[in-house]
Every structure is written in structure tokens, then in C-alpha cells.
């Protein structure tokens, strides 16, 4: 009844569960494409970029000779760079702060929404999927003093704002960023809110806590990790402000919207001062060090 079965003949000295015939363990074969990609297209350029920053490579002197830290010196003492740093910092703080608060409020509001629930959410998420270029161009015209719908509409209410004036241009950038990226915050917060355990909230309800109290003492503390992650992600992304500036203000008026990414682009592509641009990039990286280190800590924590 139990006849000898197919293909269980004595095996050769074959390997274990996780090894391929070959020198690399299976898991490294699987990760190899990724590692190669990172090595060739990230690590190497990174290294080359750093090397560039130590040269004096520009359009006129395409010289790859060692130039010391002179570029860094120039960058740090250059008024343009430090101004740009201030502008970018202002932008990031304003934008992320507004997005956090607005995003949290909307997420809470959406969580309780029953009517047309999925459609509303789908709609509110769309801005983050639109190309930033497109968003920039649209708002360029929506907020335009003469042709734009919005200035004309609010003028009827007695409010007169010149959205792209030297005083207001950066604020307009913030406005656009908020329009585009608050949905991202809403997405993160909504996911988090919906995966919170229901029992403590129902207990709070039975105990008679008001919605505000529940929020303050229960919801908010539970959301802290997500708020942290969301903030860091947005800070890192917002600091790369480029598209809106590129298609609307071109850095103006009067240099009031020259973000870091923008002046790096200008220095590198328009003026072809590659060495200087590279140095700027690394200084930028250093400025971002804090959030980056925080992320590293989170990764370590997640690994156990």
C-alpha cells in the first residue's frame, strides 16, 4: 500500500533551505539588483559629487584638480546661499506646521464622515498625485493679479492681495505647498487613526469624556509616533522646494523665493559652476543632518 514514492532518491550533498548553488546565500541574490543599483547610481555619484566639491570645476576652467575646501568657504560666506537657507527654512517651517495642523484636523473630520465617504476621501487625496509642475502653473494663473480667479474673487470681499509681490511671494509658495501636500498628511494620519484600537475610545465615551478631552489625552498621545514620522518626511521633502519657484517666480521677485534647490540648479546648470553647486549640495545635506539622524534612529528602533 505504501509503495516507494517518486523522486526521493538519495540526494547529492545538496545545500540547505536558504542557499543557492553558488557562493552567495539566497538572500543576497535577491538583494543584488538593489545593491547594484544603489552602488552605481547613488554611491558612485555621491562620491564623485563630493570630489567635485573639492575642485574648481566650472564652465570656464574645466579643471578637476584639488582645490581644497575653498568652495565650501565660498558657499558659506556667500550671502546668496545663506539668504536662500533662510528662505527655505522659513518656507519649510511654515508649510509643515500648517500641513500638520490642517492635516490632523481633516483626518479627524474625515474619520467621522459617513456620507459619500470614499468619494470625499478619493477627492481630497488627489492633489498629491498631480505633478508639482502642473500645480505650480495652475496656481500661477489662479493667483495672477490680472487674470486669476482668486484675487478677483476675494477682491469682491474687500481683500486685496498681490500674491506674487516681494512680500507675499514666499507665502504663496507655502500656500501652494499646503494645497498639494496636506492630503499626504491626511493620508498618513487617517491610516494611523483607523488602525488605533477602538476599545479605549469606547471606554472614554462610556466614561463621559468630551471629544476635545478624548483628543487631547488619548488620540494625540497615540498619534505621536506618526506625527513624528510625518513631520520628518515632510521637512525633508519640503526643503527640496523647486518646481513652484521654477515655473512661477524664477526665484523672484527680488530673490525672495530663491530656495536652496533653486539656487543650486542655477549655479550648476545655468552658470555651470558644478564644483560650487556640489559644495552647496553637501552643505545642504549637513543642514538636513538632524532629521536624517532621527530617521536612522527610527530604523534602528524598528529593527528591534
Amino acid at each position, binding site marked *: *500500500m*505504501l509503495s516507494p*514514492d*517518486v*523522486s*526521493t532518491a538519495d*540526494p547529492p*550533498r545538496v545545500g540547505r*533551505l536558504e542557499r543557492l548553488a553558488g557562493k552567495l546565500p539566497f538572500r543576497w541574490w535577491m538583494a543584488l539588483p538593489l545593491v547594484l543599483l544603489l552602488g552605481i547610481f547613488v554611491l558612485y555619484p555621491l562620491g564623485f559629487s563630493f570630489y567635485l566639491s573639492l575642485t574648481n570645476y566650472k564652465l570656464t576652467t574645466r579643471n578637476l584638480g584639488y582645490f581644497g575646501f575653498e568652495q565650501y568657504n565660498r558657499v558659506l560666506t556667500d550671502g546668496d546661499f545663506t539668504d536662500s537657507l533662510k528662505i527655505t527654512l522659513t518656507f519649510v517651517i511654515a508649510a509643515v506646521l500648517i500641513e500638520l495642523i490642517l492635516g490632523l484636523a481633516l483626518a479627524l473630520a474625515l474619520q467621522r464622515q459617513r456620507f459619500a465617504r470614499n468619494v470625499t476621501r478619493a477627492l481630497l487625496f488627489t492633489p498629491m498625485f498631480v505633478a508639482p509642475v502642473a500645480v505650480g502653473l495652475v496656481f500661477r494663473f489662479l493667483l495672477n493679479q490680472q487674470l486669476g480667479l482668486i484675487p478677483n474673487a476675494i477682491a469682491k470681499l474687500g481683500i486685496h492681495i498681490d500674491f506674487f509681490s516681494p512680500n507675499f511671494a514666499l507665502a504663496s509658495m507655502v500656500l501652494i505647498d499646503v494645497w498639494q501636500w496636506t492630503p499626504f498628511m491626511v493620508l498618513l494620519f487617517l491610516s494611523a487613526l483607523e488602525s488605533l484600537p477602538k476599545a479605549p475610545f469606547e471606554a472614554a465615551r462610556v466614561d463621559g469624556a468630551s471629544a476635545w478631552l478624548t483628543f487631547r489625552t488619548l488620540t494625540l498621545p497615540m498619534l505621536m509616533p506618526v506625527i513624528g514620522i510625518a513631520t520628518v518626511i515632510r521637512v525633508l521633502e519640503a526643503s527640496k522646494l523647486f518646481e513652484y519657484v521654477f515655473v512661477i517666480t524664477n526665484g523672484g521677485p527680488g530673490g525672495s523665493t530663491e530656495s536652496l534647490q533653486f539656487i543650486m540648479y542655477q549655479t550648476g546648470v545655468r552658470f555651470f559652476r558644478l564644483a560650487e553647486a556640489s559644495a552647496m549640495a553637501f552643505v545642504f545635506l549637513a543642514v538636513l543632518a538632524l532629521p536624517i539622524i532621527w530617521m536612522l534612529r527610527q530604523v534602528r528602533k524598528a529593527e528591534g
Partner: protein
Amino acid sequence: MASIRFENVVKHYGAYQAIRNVSFAIPDGEFVVIVGPSGSGKTTMLRAIGGLERVNSGRIFIGDRDVTDLAPKHRDIAFVFQNYALYAHLTVRNNIGFPLKARKMPKDEIMRRVEDVAERTGLKALLDRKPSALSGGQQQRVAIARALVRKPKVFLFDEPLSNLDAQLRLDMRREVLELQQSLGVTSVWVTHDQEEAMAMGDRILVVNHGMVEQNAAPEALYSDPVNAYVARTIGSPTINMLRGKLNGQGLDVEGVRFPLPGGALQGDIMIGVRPEDIHPVKAAADHPNATPPFEAKVQLIELLGARAIMTLLVGNHRLTAVFNRRDLADIREFDTIRVSAAKDRLLYFKPETGERIRL
């Protein structure tokens, strides 16, 4: 069909010893149960037999073959996981046929075998369903069918019934046993439920902290345990353990005297009395070889139909007893009654090591 042999097997995870130098032999065709609490190493042993864990030293034999360094697919074993590990994206038919497909069996042969096994496990009507459309018991059967279809030398079961409700568990238990009997394939079954172990095993390995405490037939484990740990593990409700000093008149446990004989033994001792061996004195006539009666206060009566679990208080020591419905008669909670224990069924243990002393 094949025997299984462990020789000085050791497995550790870093500093944690999962299997400490274990050796045992399982004869061909037997149904062996490995029983122990969580973390005792029983699952690790099972997985080691199957090749899902590699051992640090020692050798494992299936039949005459040393399989210690072989991958699972070369050991000719079948494994049934606790959560069945069914392939959710395949139909029942393809789930069962999967191992045959892996071995490149011809299609019509696969079909034949799958139908055959489905018939045997009562799955014929469900062949074209997907696992998500099956009940727990049915999923269980699919897992077993998949194991059967390859006609392996050894079946390995990792607590397969723990996810089922009580009645289903009993039904499946019976089915699996009948199947194994008719096939005669060596089977190793891991469980934490000693009742299940006692009901199913031709032989039981009681495992504790990576060591096999005793390897014997159920009856032997029950009436002739090799130490206090085995005595406590086997039998429900748990055996009563009384620790005290033996003198001529009985066992003195912190001032309370139990009239238990000790033969030639004196001094510090631990005596085990099974709840089913404690009887009310009225029924003493049914139980020759009883100890002298002693008084006990009834604290709690848990009525279980034909029997009742009694929680008795002697002095300030709690004893568990199991009475027949008949014996229960007009005994009520908070009554004081007289009971005696079956003299010849007492178990004696060394107090520090738990080692059994045979009189």
C-alpha cells in the same frame, strides 16, 4: 514507513537551550505524541525531525538514513502546521496536488492521487473551492490530505487542533487516529494538551525545558511516572502533591496530619495523590486498600455531569478530588466529610529533585 531516531541532539539559539542532548527512538508505525508546555522545546524537536531547524550537534535518523544534513524535501516527510499553511491563492485540488507537481509527477497521476486522497478525507465535494471558503475543520482536512498525497515515510503534526473548537477537536482527533491506523505510517504529534496526548499516543514523550522527562506508553506515564514533573503533567485534574515529614502515624504537612502510609520510608518526602483516588468514606467498601479516613471540609463542588471536581480543605491545605455522581449523594458545599485515599496508588517522590521513589 520508517523508524525515527534522535542521537544526542542539541539545539540552541544563542544562549538559549532549546534541545539539551536528547536521544530517543520511535519504532516504525507508531503514533507518538510529544507533550509539554510552551517553550519546552517540543515544537523545535518536531521541526528538527522535519529539517526545518538545523541542529547544532547530534544525529537524526529516519529509517536507516542519516538525515541530519538533508533539506526537508529530501527527508520524505510531511508536515501539518498549526495554522495549516494552505496556499490561499490555489483551489483545494491544487493545494493537495502541489507537492506532487513539485516532484514533476505526470498530470494524470496527480489527478488520480488527489481524487483518491480527497475521497479518503471527505473532501471530494470541496475540491474546487479556495481555502478562504472553507471552515476550520475543512481546512484542517486539506492540510492532512496534502500531507497524505505524497505517501511519505513520516507524518509530523504541529499542534494542528489548537485552532479548532472543542467538539471539532474531538472529531478530528478520531479521524486522524483512524487514518493513521489504516495507513500505519510513523507519526509524531506535538501538543500541549495532555488529555489529547493520552488519548492519541501509542507512546508519549513528556518534554520539559529541552529534555525528555519520560518516554513511555500512556498507562505507564499515568501509573508509573518517573518524576514529579511527569506526574503533574499527566492526569486531569492535576495530581495533589503533599510535601512533609513521614513518621509512624502518617504524613505531617505543616502541622496537618494525613494518615498516609510510608512503608519503610521516614523523614522528608513528597507524596502524590491523584484526585480520582480520593473517595468519601461511605463508599469505602468499594475501595479496599484505603488509608484510614480523615476529615475534610468541602469548599467547592464543580459538577461535570457524571462526575464532580471537589475542592477540599484539610487544615489549610487544599486537595482536589473527583467524586462519582453516586458518591456525591447529599454532600453540599461547606459540609465537613470524611475521605480516604487509595493506599496502593500513592506515588512517592524525593522532595528536592522530584525523583520518584518506588516502594
